[in-house]
């Protein structure tokens, strides 16, 4: 392992531990695709056996599952060079908008020395692709990327060896470029395609080195999305777009609330609808038809009674409930002596920050199609975890895992919400019961009902400053958001960070419905609380919020992003509230550093916030695709406006009141601020996360901007117009 790899592991051990504190439903021990099966699947083409020093590290870092759940040791699993010279890359990662279809192809093309256009990626197909834990945690580029690069680098070395034999030249005289091996300064050359020539060649090469960033011609260059053409023409297939002969579309009877039990069901009217098939199997009541709207009619004709569980909590009382349910705290970090810090402090600020449940609300609802033929089941699903689904479906169907193939077409947004695949298991169960291919596509109301919401959470912070305006102590407790992003990075002599429930599930009796990972899980809540509190300390110190942060920072990466953001924004120091409506926040997520500065306009009469401008500076180590990285930053900022300003799940006990976008407001075009992104490229540092980091600051950023505009400190997200008006009224 290279030194910088070791370093990155130790620096980010904290964020990784948080990433994996709770994995999506742990699959049963699985069976890896063996090499012979893989060769059969590949068919013709050149096969290159390579090895990589990265391999040992990855399974451990990706958390590992049961036996066999690790990246394969056979590197044929990662790439294939076709007879026509076209290169196919294989990854268990899926494409849900985050853009790895492009950045992984860039890495493969670069290390193999082929044109980017000649690379196609096959993603998330459990029969064709190497095992993968799932697409989440901003890990594709960080952890799968190095393995793919190593595979490609060694593949190129093998091709050069083969060319040397074919051309009868020393391999030292050969170079590879654009899919051709040529004699340096000479006439002889041979293409990768010619080297393949229908043969299957197994060869092992040791010591092939990946390129140095100074040699890059494809990586590090802004590159447009490879999937755009399919997506603008309507040709891109999502799980709900897959059609199979004889398939039926299923609608399933749902309970009115979580925890409700269906007592009486009358399906006689549904049975009378022509062409409708009714399935009753234990707790499952489904109606199936060739088209969804007729299945809808049949479902509507079913009468059912349900016994509901007592509703003892709602969106107003949830925070008291959570504090009562808090488990024993786990100390994530501590240093110095809090009592000493308190006596050194001149002023102390103690506050409680609240954060409501938030939905993933991807525009594509969960969809799947399951087909069972003989002993083979094929499931097309919108999921972030195809290999976990494969195991779960095998267990459900009572077949060995090798009998199940999961194929993930394009996924219409995930953000953690497609980590579980209940809809695909329903489709599989119904396919088995009916003997026909069955598709399940959730309605929007079902999507809200079954979403694994970002947990409601509480953060309590007590902190103080010295006469010199330095942070004397920091006592931090986070309840139910999770540990990710909880640790502060300021230079504070006496500090303690405690997590009461370090993951997103809460435990029995805590949340009245399912909760789960939501883009940068935990970090949005933690960064909102921390950066709001830092701003409050700056006010007490009578200092400009950026100057106060810099005064209390030693971390050079953070200082750099913050200063760069201030320069880009054109920051003029002033104490808050300055009336300008400026906010600042910074944080660390998935190994990347981010600093944001925003300008808002706040209408005091309506309480509405219009975000006018957001500057974001992100340092993410080696950036494979700067254009893709900017796109992710813009997306994160725009999405983050929602949880900061409007998004909040309303519920009474297990009943979810939000059923569609009229009662759950997502960011719209009219909200769009001018977003200016600076990616600080650090090509000699390992690549860090890019899909999540830029969303973490949005709550604190806008809360600080609201304070700067009005002098009102909002302690609860989302900052709805009502809450803003109420806070202003209290001034």
């Amino acid at each position, binding site marked *: 392992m290279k030194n910088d790899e070791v370093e990155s592991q130790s620096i980010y051990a904290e964020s990784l531990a948080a990433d994996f504190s709770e994995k999506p439903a742990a699959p049963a021990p699985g069976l890896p695709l063996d090499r012979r099966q893989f060769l059969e699947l590949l068919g013709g083409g050149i096969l290159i056996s390579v090895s990589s020093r990265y391999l040992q590290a990855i399974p451990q870092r990706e958390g590992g599952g049961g036996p066999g759940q690790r990246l394969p040791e056979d590197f044929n699993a990662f790439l294939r060079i076709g007879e026509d010279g076209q290169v196919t890359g294989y990854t268990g990662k899926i494409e*849900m*908008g985050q*853009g790895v279809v492009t950045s992984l192809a860039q890495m493969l093309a670069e290390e193999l020395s082929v044109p980017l256009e000649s690379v196609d990626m096959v993603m998330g197909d459990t029969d064709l692709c190497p095992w993968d834990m799932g697409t989440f945690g901003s890990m594709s580029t960080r952890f799968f990327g190095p393995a793919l690069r190593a595979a490609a680098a060694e593949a190129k070395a093998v091709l050069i060896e083969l060319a040397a034999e074919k051309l009868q030249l020393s391999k030292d005289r050969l170079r590879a470029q654009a899919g051709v091996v040529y004699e340096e300064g000479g006439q002889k050359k041979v293409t990768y395609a010619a080297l393949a020539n229908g043969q299957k060649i197994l060869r092992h090469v040791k010591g092939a080195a990946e390129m140095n960033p100074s040699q890059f011609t494809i990586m590090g260059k802004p590159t*447009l*999305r490879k*999937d*755009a*053409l*399919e*997506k*603008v*023409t*309507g*040709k*891109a*297939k*999502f799980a*709900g*777009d897959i059609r199979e002969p004889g398939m039926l*579309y299923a609608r399933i009877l749902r309970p009115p609330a979580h925890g409700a039990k269906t007592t009486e069901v009358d399906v006689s009217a549904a049975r009378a609808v022509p062409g409708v098939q009714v399935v009753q199997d234990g707790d499952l009541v489904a109606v199936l038809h*060739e*088209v*969804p*709207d*007729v299945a809808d009619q049949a479902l509507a004709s079913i009468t059912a009674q349900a016994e509901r569980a007592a509703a003892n909590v709602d969106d107003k009382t949830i925070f008291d409930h959570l504090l009562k349910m808090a488990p024993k705290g786990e100390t994530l970090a501590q240093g110095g002596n809090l009592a000493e810090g308190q006596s050194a402090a001149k002023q102390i600020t103690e506050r409680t920050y609240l954060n409501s449940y938030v939905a993933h*609300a*991807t*525009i*594509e*609802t969960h969809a799947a199609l399951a087909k069972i033929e003989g002993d083979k089941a094929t499931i097309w699903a919108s999921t972030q975890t195809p290999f976990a689904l494969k195991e779960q479906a095998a267990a459900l169907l009572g077949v060995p895992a090798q009998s199940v193939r999961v194929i993930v077409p*394009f*996924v*219409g*947004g*995930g*953000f953690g919400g497609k980590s579980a695949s209940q809809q695909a298991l329903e489709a599989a169960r119904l396919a088995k019961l009916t003997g026909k291919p069955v598709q399940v*596509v959730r*309605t*929007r109301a079902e999507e809200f009902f079954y979403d694994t919401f970002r947990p409601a959470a509480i953060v309590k912070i007590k902190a103080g400053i010295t006469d010199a305006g330095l942070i004397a102590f920091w006592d931090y407790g986070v309840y139910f958001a999770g540990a990710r992003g909880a640790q502060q990075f300021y230079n504070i002599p006496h500090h303690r960070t405690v997590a009461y429930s370090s993951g997103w599930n809460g435990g029995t009796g805590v949340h009245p419905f399912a909760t789960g990972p939501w883009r940068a899980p935990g970090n949005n809540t933690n960064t909102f609380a921390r950066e709001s509190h830092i701003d409050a300390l700056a006010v007490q110190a009578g200092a400009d919020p950026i100057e106060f942060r810099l005064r209390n920072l030693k971390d050079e990466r953070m200082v750099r992003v913050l200063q760069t953001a201030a320069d880009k924004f054109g920051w003029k120091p002033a104490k808050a509230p300055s009336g300008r409506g400026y906010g600042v926040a910074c944080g660390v997520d998935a190994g990347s550093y981010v600093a944001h500065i925003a300008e808002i306009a706040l209408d005091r009469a309506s309480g509405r916030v219009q975000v006018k401008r957001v500057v974001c500076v992100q340092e993410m180590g080696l950036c494979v695709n700067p*254009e*893709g990285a900017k*796109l992710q930053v*813009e*997306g*994160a*900022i*725009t*999405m983050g406006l929602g949880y900061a300003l409007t998004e909040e799940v309303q519920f009474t006990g297990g009943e979810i009141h939000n059923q*569609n*976008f*009229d009662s759950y407001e*997502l*960011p*719209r*075009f*009219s*909200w*769009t601020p*001018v*977003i200016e992104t600076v990616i600080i490229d650090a090509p000699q540092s390992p690549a860090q996360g890019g899909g999540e980091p830029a969303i973490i600051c949005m709550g604190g950023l806008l809360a600080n901007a609201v304070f700067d505009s009005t002098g009102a400190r909002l302690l609860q997200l989302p900052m709805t117009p009502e809450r803003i008006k109420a806070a202003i009224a209290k001034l």
Partner: protein
Amino acid sequence: MKKTVAFTMNGQQISIEVDPSRSLLWVLRYDLGLTGTKYGCGEGLCGACTVIIDHKAVRACTLQVKEVAGKRLTTIEGLARNGDLHPVQKAFVEHDALQCGYCTPGMIMNVYGLLLNNPHPSRSQIIESMDGNLCRCGAHQRILAAIESAAQQMGGAQR
């Protein structure tokens, strides 16, 4: 009760035997196999199913198939001609104006409808016209840039 419903679909005359009260969205997606038009909300709240009927952008999920009888319907599949992308499609590609791509067909059809009726829209007209189309990935800034660029390039033409 099935009846014959005839209309022009992406430039071709078609007639289908269908219960005329069925949802246009599901007839497009299941009966006609045009899966580029997406389901997002079923109530006209997200714009993922936007199609053009007689030069106007409409939400297919709120219409019955009989409402398209005798009219001209264009879906995302009918926008590129002879393999040439429409300038709006081209602008989306060139601006990286999409991420997951699920809302993209509806976005593009809504823009197409806007430019048919207002070839030189102002920034605020664009925003007003697009505000009912939801994108969860947050490609908004680039979509707005793509629309402005396409409108400028088209210079008032329909293509």
